[in-house]
């Protein structure tokens, strides 16, 4: 028979009470933090999963922010494009009116000034901003994509395509963008296109008599001198307003990552909405219309109508693109919220305390703890000492 000593009993009681206290403490920690996982060693597989799930939830939140930001871009673009649509509808009506043979020259000039207002509107639409960023400028959001510039240029060193000096009349002179560099080196500067009809003056010369202008392409054609007031092309000063397109590369797309591995462009490029550098842009079409009205030419006015309509189509196309991207963002957003909820549930399953179960465990454990102390107290007390 094993000898049982006082020390053994008291040790057993202590170990038992200590064990129960440790278990109680674990349950206490779970209940007070509401988390099952408090240390990696609590559940090493769970903790790895939980860390990953947290990162994923974090990313879903980020994607949602990206989506909402993209929605702001696209809805602003859509609104702007819609007003561009209205502008072109009006331009089309004016073109129809202007091509009516019964209109007189002053009436056409009146129509021209109305188109001029439309041009201004169109430029301001193209320069729409969101939080200070130009949204139709690709990634060049700090530069307005289009601007109306007033230019003063003195014709000197006028060269033809072979870079040979021109000083003969008749002559055709290309106007260059002088905002970048002086006109003496034409190869360095892009041509100044889309000159606003009615804004050009050349040293007291008379348009139609002394010269004609191709406003769309920015060329001045000096006519054979009949009145004797035009001796040479060189040295003449030209003033005009024109629509300058930013020389920067605006083809960059503004992207938002809306899901893992899914990046959606949220901007509409200027080429897509208004026409590229080498295409007939919406401004080319409006200038063409203005030129028809300016020069009192019903046929030229009529010729600009298909251009205006093409621009309208282009604008509608851009609007559709923006709309379909918007739809994609909306569906992605729904998906995102569903995923997020699912992630939250999974995280909660791994991390969170099942309160009902834990509290009942706690109460069981507490009873065992109290019982162990009561029994311990009873066992430890008596000894032969008390009875001698």
């Amino acid at each position, binding site marked *: 028979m094993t000898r049982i000593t006082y020390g053994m009993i008291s040790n057993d009681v202590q170990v038992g009470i200590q064990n129960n206290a440790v278990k109680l403490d674990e349950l206490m920690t779970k209940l007070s933090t509401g988390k099952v996982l408090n240390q990696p060693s609590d559940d090493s597989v769970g903790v790895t999963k939980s860390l990953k799930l947290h990162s994923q939830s974090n990313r879903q939140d980020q994607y949602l922010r990206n989506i909402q930001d993209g929605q702001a871009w696209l809805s602003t673009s859509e609104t702007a494009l819609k007003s561009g649509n209205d502008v072109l509808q009006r331009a089309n009506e004016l073109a129809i009116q202007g091509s009516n043979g019964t209109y007189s020259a002053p009436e056409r000039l009146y129509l021209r000034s109305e188109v001029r207002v439309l041009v201004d509107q169109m430029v301001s639409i193209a320069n729409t901003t969101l939080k200070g960023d130009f949204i139709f400028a*690709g990634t060049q959001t700090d*530069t307005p994509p289009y601007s109306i510039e007033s230019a003063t240029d003195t014709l000197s060193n006028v060269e033809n395509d072979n870079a040979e000096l021109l000083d003969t009349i008749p002559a055709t002179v290309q106007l260059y963008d002088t905002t970048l560099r002086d006109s003496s080196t034409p190869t360095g500067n892009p041509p100044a296109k889309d000159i606003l009809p009615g804004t050009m003056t050349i040293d007291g010369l008379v348009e139609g008599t002394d010269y004609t202008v191709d406003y769309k392409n920015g060329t001045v054609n000096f006519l054979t001198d009949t009145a004797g007031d035009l001796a040479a092309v060189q040295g003449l000063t030209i003033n005009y307003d024109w629509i300058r397109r930013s020389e920067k590369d605006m083809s960059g797309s503004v992207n938002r990552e809306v899901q893992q591995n899914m990046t959606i462009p949220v901007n509409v490029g200027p080429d897509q909405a208004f026409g590229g550098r080498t295409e007939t842009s919406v401004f080319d079409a409006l200038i063409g219309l203005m030129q028809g009205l300016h020069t009192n030419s019903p046929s030229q006015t009529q010729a600009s109508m298909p251009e205006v309509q093409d621009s309208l189509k282009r604008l509608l196309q851009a609007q559709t693109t923006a709309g379909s991207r918007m739809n994609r963002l909306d569906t992605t957003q729904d998906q995102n919220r569903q995923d997020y909820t699912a992630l939250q549930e999974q995280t909660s399953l791994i991390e969170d305390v099942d309160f009902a179960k834990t509290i009942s465990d706690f109460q069981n454990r507490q009873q065992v703890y109290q019982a162990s102390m009561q029994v311990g107290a009873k066992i430890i007390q008596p*000894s032969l000492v008390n009875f001698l």
Partner: protein
Amino acid sequence: MSMFDLLNIGTRGLAAAQSQLDLVGQNVTNANTEGYSRKRANLQAGARQDGVYGEVGFGVDVVNIKSMRDSLLNRQMQEVATTLGEREQLDKELLSVENVLTEPSDSGLNKFLDKFWSSWQDLANNPADVTARQAVLDASSSLVGRFQDIGNQFNQLIAAKNEEISSYTGQINQLLEGIAKDNQTISESEMGGERTTANDTRDQRELKLNALSRMLEISYTEDAQGRYVITAAGSLLVSTEGALPLKVERSQFSLADGSQVSRSTVTLSSTGQELEPAGGSLKSLFVTRDDIIPRYQNQIDEYAKRLVQSVNAQHSQGYDLAGSTGTNFFDPATTGASTIDLSATVKNGTAFLAAAFGGTSQGLGAPLDLTIPAAGEPLDIGNTVNTNYRNFSANSVIVRTVGPPSVLLKEGAGNDYTVDYRGGRIMFNNSAASMTAPGTDITVDFRYTSAAYNGQGDGNNALKIAQLAQTKIAAPDQFGNYTATLGDAYSSLVGKLGAEKSNSASTLTTATNLKDYLQKQIDSISGVSMDEELGNMVKFQNSYSASARYINTVSRLMDTLIGLGQ
């Protein structure tokens, strides 16, 4: 048999009962003394030779006083102590590693990484926004701070382990000295044979042996004079002559991240060799210092380095607000978690974050004053003038002689020159008649396309950096291919740590249970039972009273005898 013999028998009975009562007192008062084993007096019936009857009884003899102890159990206990010491220490160390990483919590590295990647996403959404830029810097500084904190804490842990190794060695030496001294006492005391067993010193020595075993795996033998000879890893620690203490030597040591620590090594004074503990808490300290901490620290260092490399590689491809490119985001000199930092450029301000990925720009070549090179040599503008002067725009090249007269040269095969538009090179036909002879001064003008800043609205590089969160840039396999994202690699490291810790906790529980079980067995033999002692006390008291009464009776007998003679 004389009357006085009767008296002697009684006296010896008294003495025996007294010494037994003495032991009861000793046992009862030492019931709670650690390492004490209860004592018993072994009695033997005394005898002497009588001329008439041969051997006759002569009262009782106290043969010796014996400790109740099972040396086999003690040996087992000492072995368990080694296991327990080792595991307890290991568990404590793993807990401190867990505490360095503080996962899962809001102050864990994972949270900081998440915030870091998120801040780049926000920057991608608002690439020119100062607030978004500042947010990236803030998130990066926190991340860098957390990395440094972890790295430094690991370094401090290693330094602490070195301190502990030397302090543990000091404690071991004290125990060795103590055991050697006890050996001396025991062997001197026990010269007198079994009767003079040094019971209490033996108890004390057993206690010291257990404490020693907790710290270091040892083996021991007992020689004929009761001395313990102790060896560790085959080398003597305590000989019959005395203790051979351990020595701590310190040397400078560089950690993985380049920081210097003073490293402790323990050498045996018996052989002069380095001690490699085979068990005990000292072994756990060595394992912690040389394996566990470096293992986790190296991983964290690796993550820090991979983060720096990957983010820098992407960041340097992008353009900052001023349109400059090629800058690092993190300090490329990072050697590990404790040395990670933002690059000097980025620290200068938010404008230096390269959020834009860039595109191309049309450039205007300033009219260049050049000279037609030697016959057959091309005029290599793209390589000799400016590396940006390549990808000339079609028909944009104009070459003139300086003159006077200034002559416009003609382009085309068979004319004055041809142009390699992509490479930015002009080949001349070198005819003196057309003024293209080598050495002629010319001006060259052109337009060109070059890689360039794409404007403030370009957040594509920030997006690319943010996407590194989802790119496998960590945990290389044996072929050097990265197999996990940084976040995932880190999460599984934390999981591994958790598994190691919970494994160690359960082996610790096993060892503790085994120890408790053995302790119980030892207590069952050596422990003092109050009931038993008090029962014995009553018994010995009675026996004392009986002996006294016997002496009283003998005394009366003597009185009677003496009365006869009067």
